[in-house]
Each structure stands twice: as structure tokens, then as C-alpha cells.
């Protein structure tokens, strides 16, 4: 520690009388000074509200402005009703589907940018890919409505090509399309960061030793980028699990997800804050587990980009 703090020797050397206790003190104060601002921030805006939700979730049928009963686990028992299982299952399915789609669409793009595109174009290509993120996700969802609606651009195009029209809006396909579109840039960014570090000499070595391109891909490229794949997959899974805008705007009447259910319990037609809170806690728990997995198995360097 004493060698790793280059600033303190200048302070300590001219003052040989300064006891080792001074060192100890700075070592104690430094982290506090550095951590307190963000600590207070997190405590006030994350930990305290989460605890509040936790409390509400243990008050069965809590509704604002109405007398409440005592504590109990009624809200959590409610979750186990088949209808809610269906909603949870649907949310997970959407998230998995979105993750797989993003992976299938994102990997070739990231591979191309990182490995095959001319190096001087790389940054430009990346920026071009991330550019949609600069607009509001709400606007992007509205754009998809314009495209997917029965009289929208997609069907005009299909008609022009003499193909059958598709009615995807207000159904599951629209949700998948909208969510995959929203999260694809994240996936590409993370995979790119991982693929960029790929040791290309190994690819050459593999082909020298007679591996076919497929073999090289599965035995050299994929194992090397596995942490990136895990990070990208989990990140997209986590964000799409909590996605609200796309299912709400594109999903119509038949794609209730957990986030929409929570919204309905707080601000929507049925205002049961207790039940909403228990679903929130369920969601927070699920996402926390996913984040723990991300930290354990993901490529942390690329996840941070």
C-alpha cells in the first residue's frame, strides 16, 4: 500500500515525525470521502424506495387513500394464481425471444465490424449503429406503429410486391420486433468489445492446421468471445424483462407483461399498490439474480463499455 500511494511519500517524508497513525487515518478517510456522495445517492434513491416497496408488498390489498389491514403475505399468495403465472411466463418468453433474436442478428454485425471491416471505418460504423439510441424509445415505438399498422408502410410494401399482408400490430410479433430493435445496439456494442479483443493469429493458426471456417468459428471464435456473449445476452435479457414501452404501445390487448401489470396496479385501471409492490419485488429479485449471473459469468470489461 505504501508503495502504491505516490502522493503520500512527499507528504510523509519531510515530516518524519508524522506517525504511522496519520497514514492510517488517510487510509480510513479517503474511501469515505470518495464513497459517501454515491452512497448517499444510492441510499436515498435506490435502497430506501426499494425498502418502501418491500413494506407495501407485505400489506395485502394496499390502496392509496383507503384504510389498510395489518401485514401479511396475501400479495405474494396472489401472485401464484394461474392468470399471473401466465403473465410472468409471457414476460420471460418475450425477454428470451428478444435476447435470442438480438444475438442472432447482432453477432454477424459485431463480427463484421470488429474483424472484417477496414479499421478506419470501425468507429464510424459503430456510431452509425448506435445512432438510433439518441432518439427517445417512445418515438421509436411510435415509428413501429406507423410501419406495422394494417394500413402502414410494411403492408404497402408487401402489397407492392404482391405478397400477403401481415397484421402484426397489437400482437406478439410486434412486441418481438419492437424489443429486438430497441436492444440490438446494446448487444452489438458488447459483442464488438469482446470480438475486438479476438486474437486473429489464432484464426490463422486454425486455418493453417486445416480447420474449416465453421470449425474455426465454433472452436476458436466462440469460446474466446463467450464472456461477451454471456454479458450481452444477460444485459439484453434483463432490460427486456422490465421493458414497458414496447409491449404497452405495440402489444395491444393480448400481451400483458409484468411491467404493464405493475403499471396498471399503480396508475392504471386497477389500483392495488400492495399487489403491484409484490410484483415489483418479484421483478427486482429476478433481475438481481440475472445481474449476479452477469457479474459471475459475463465479460465485465465489455459489459462496461
Amino acid at each position, binding site marked *: 500500500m505504501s508503495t502504491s500511494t505516490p502522493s503520500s511519500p512527499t507528504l510523509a517524508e519531510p515530516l518524519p515525525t508524522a506517525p504511522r497513525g496519520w497514514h492510517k487515518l488517510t487510509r480510513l478517510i479517503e474511501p469515505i470521502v470518495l464513497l459517501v456522495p454515491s452512497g448517499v445517492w444510492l441510499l436515498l434513491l435506490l435502497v430506501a424506495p426499494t425498502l418502501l416497496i418491500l413494506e407495501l408488498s407485505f400489506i395485502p390489498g394496499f390502496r*392509496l387513500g383507503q384504510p389498510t389491514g395489518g401485514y401479511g403475505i396475501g400479495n405474494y399468495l396472489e401472485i401464484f394464481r394461474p392468470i399471473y403465472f401466465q403473465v410472468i411466463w409471457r414476460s420471460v418468453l418475450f425477454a428470451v425471444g428478444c435476447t435470442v433474436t438480438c444475438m442472432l442478428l447482432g453477432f454477424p454485425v459485431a463480427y463484421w465490424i470488429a474483424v472484417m471491416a477496414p479499421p478506419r471505418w470501425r468507429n464510424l460504423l459503430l456510431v452509425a449503429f448506435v445512432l438510433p439510441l439518441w432518439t427517445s424509445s417512445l418515438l421509436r415505438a411510435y415509428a413501429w406503429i406507423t410501419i406495422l*399498422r394494417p394500413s402502414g408502410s410494411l403492408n404497402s410494401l408487401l402489397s407492392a410486391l404482391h405478397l400477403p399482408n401481415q397484421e402484426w400490430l*397489437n*400482437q406478439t410479433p410486434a412486441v418481438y420486433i419492437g424489443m429486438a430493435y430497441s436492444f440490438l445496439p446494446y448487444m452489438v456494442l458488447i459483442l464488438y468489445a469482446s470480438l475486438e479483443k479476438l486474437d486473429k493469429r489464432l484464426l490463422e493458426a486454425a486455418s493453417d492446421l486445416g480447420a474449416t471456417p465453421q470449425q474455426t468459428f465454433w472452436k476458436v471464435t466462440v469460446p474466446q468471445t463467450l464472456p461477451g456473449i454471456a454479458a450481452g445476452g444477460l444485459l439484453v435479457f434483463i432490460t427486456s424483462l422490465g421493458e414497458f414501452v414496447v409491449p404497452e404501445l405495440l402489444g395491444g*390487448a*393480448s400481451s400483458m407483461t409484468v411491467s404493464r401489470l405493475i403499471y396498471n396496479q399503480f396508475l392504471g*385501471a386497477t389500483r392495488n399498490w400492495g399487489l403491484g*409492490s409484490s410484483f415489483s419485488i418479484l421483478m427486482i429479485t429476478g433481475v438481481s439474480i440475472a445481474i449476479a449471473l452477469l457479474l459471475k459469468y459475463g465479460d465485465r470489461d465489455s459489459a462496461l463499455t
Partner: protein
Amino acid sequence: MSSNQQNRFDRKSAHLPLPRFSPTRRRFLKTSAAIASGLALSNCARNLSNANTGSSPTGSPTDSATSASGKLYIYTWANYTDDELIKGFQEKTGIQVVADPFASNEIMMAKMQAGGGSAYSIIYPSDYTVIEMRESGMLTPLDHSRLQGLDTLKPKWQNPVYDRGNAHSIPAVWGTTGLIYDPQKVGKEIDGWSYIWDNRKSLTRQVTLIEDVREVMGATLRTLGYSYNTTNPDQIKKAYSKLVQIKPTIASFLTTGWEDQLASGDITISMVYSQDAIALIKEKPNLKYIVPKTGSSVWTDTMVIPKSAPNPDAAYAWMNYLLQPDVAAGLVERLGTATANQAAFDLLSPETQKDDRLFPTEAMLSKCEGVAPVPARITEVYDQYWTRLTSS
């Protein structure tokens, strides 16, 4: 990250002093406001921090309002005010008005109860919400000696069931719930809710219903011959079973945001409030609004002064201004909002007076009911069936 953008976006829209948006823009903002507040909720942690610290998800101008005495903040439905009204009021009283829109009574209530609406001196709750607000002690009893023109209200609104003697509220806009459709597309005249059930095979994802438990369940109850306000769980269950039959026809549950889809023919029929229907028909005269023959709901949006109002004097001035017959009549002509003021009604052109979408005939109204609050355990029954309907 993106949700921050949402909030910024919404904050912008919530602060606009309500210029006259084109209807499309207005709708967009309305829906955006709803979505953005939902976004704040989808991040659950943020939601309760809002509730806890009393700052509102839509960024209410709390701080500036309590200090500025010459300002009146009102919390209202999106198209109930316009520039002309606000300018006229300012010229007369010197009070500057900022109108923030809400998309549903529920959102307004959540904000008020969470302490985020302390800036507002005037709120526009609907009839059943007036009862709810009064019962939870949120409303100031109105001092009738400070109000001029209450006697010019139509007799029906002199002593309404939701607020006897207008003790806490003044009716602002009223209307019905009904169906809007394109007669050319449908090929015939629709006269009631039963059309959806009779044609459910051919109407797959062609219908939008209002996102409101009591309106949708009530309309169905009504087709079964029951009351909108039934407290009999068996009748509610029957209504649910009937509603499930038309689930495949429902594209979406939308209180706003159906307009473009209906106008472009992407959906065939929408269940809507008369106020919104009239606004759209002004642009698209080929559409038609009907009050179902089996009866529907009739609603009143009111003006109230919350207990937390920072500027009650300005609130009374606003109420008095809107009670003036010429001002109220001007609003009807410009915004298509039906007035409960007899003196204002008398000033309207004969065509407007005879418009039965704006002012339904007594015969039509006799079959309509107002939605009234039901006991908490019955609310739960309604909510459970609604969740089952929307989650399947």
C-alpha cells in the same frame, strides 16, 4: 437511460402553457404523458422515491407555484382549455394560468395522494372521483357566496348525485360514452353494443375499448339488463363471461390514442367518450358517434379546489370566469365540450343546440347512468375480473 429521456420529454410537454396543438400532436402528448409516467413506474424504485419525496413523475412546478401568488396552476384533461380562454382570463384578472394535462382520473389521484400535486389550485376530476376525493378529505367545501352564476346551471346539475348542492365541485364538461365508427366501412348503421357481439367472428382485432374497468364492465352489464353500478358479484361474473367472448376482437384498451387508427381504418369501432369523438369528427366528418340504444354512461367532469391549493382566490376567480355564459359558450363552440350551463346553452347556435352527440336528447339520457363508487370489496371483484380479462 432511455427512461430519463422519456421524463425529460414529458416534462417538456407538461410545462407547456397549452397552446392549441393540432389534435394529432395533442393526442401524442396525452399518450406520451401516460406512457412516461408509466416509465417512471416501470422503474419501481424510482416510483416510490417520487411518492416519498413528494416530487411528481411529471415534474410539477411545485416550488415556483407556492411562491408566485399571481399564478394559477390547474390540473385538467388535455383539451379542456385553450389559448383564448387562458388569455381572456389573464386579461380580466391579471392572473397567469399554467394548465398541466392528465390522462386519467387514476393518474391524477395517484399524483395528488402521493403529494405531487400541491401546486394546483384547480383540478378537473370526474364525478365518481369527486366522491372519492371528498371522502378522503382532499377537497375544500366551496363558498357559494364567492361564486356568481351557479343559478344558471341546468337544473340537473344544480343538485347532482355525485355532489349534492355542488358543495365541493362545479360541473365543467359533461358527456356520454358510446361508439364511434365509419358507417361506410361497416356498411350499416350501428345502434348498440350488441353489434360487437353479433359480428365477433369478422371483427378480429378491430375494436378498441376504453381502459376503464367500470366503463367496460358497465356497458356489458347494461347489455345484460343490469345496472352500471351493480354490487351483485353474480351479475359482474356474468358480464365478465360475456366480455370474454369478444376478447379476440379487442385490438387494444385505449382511452386515448385510438383516433389515428380509427381514422385510417386500421380499426373499425372504438368505445370512446363523446368529447373525444366530437373532436375527431370535426376533422373526419365521415365518422359517426352513437350512444348505444341499450343505454350507456353519462359523466360529468368538474372543477374542484383541493385542500392543498396554494391560491384559492385565483381558483374562485377561474370558476367565476368559466361560469360566465359567454365564456362557457365560447368553449363549446371552439373545443366541442358540452356545457352544463343553461345560460351558455341558450347562447349557442341552433345547430349546436340540436347536436345530439353534444347534447343527447332526454330520451337518450333516460337510459344512461352515471358511474358511482361501489364498496371496496366490490371494487376488488371488478378489478379481479378486469385483470383476468386484460392478462389472458
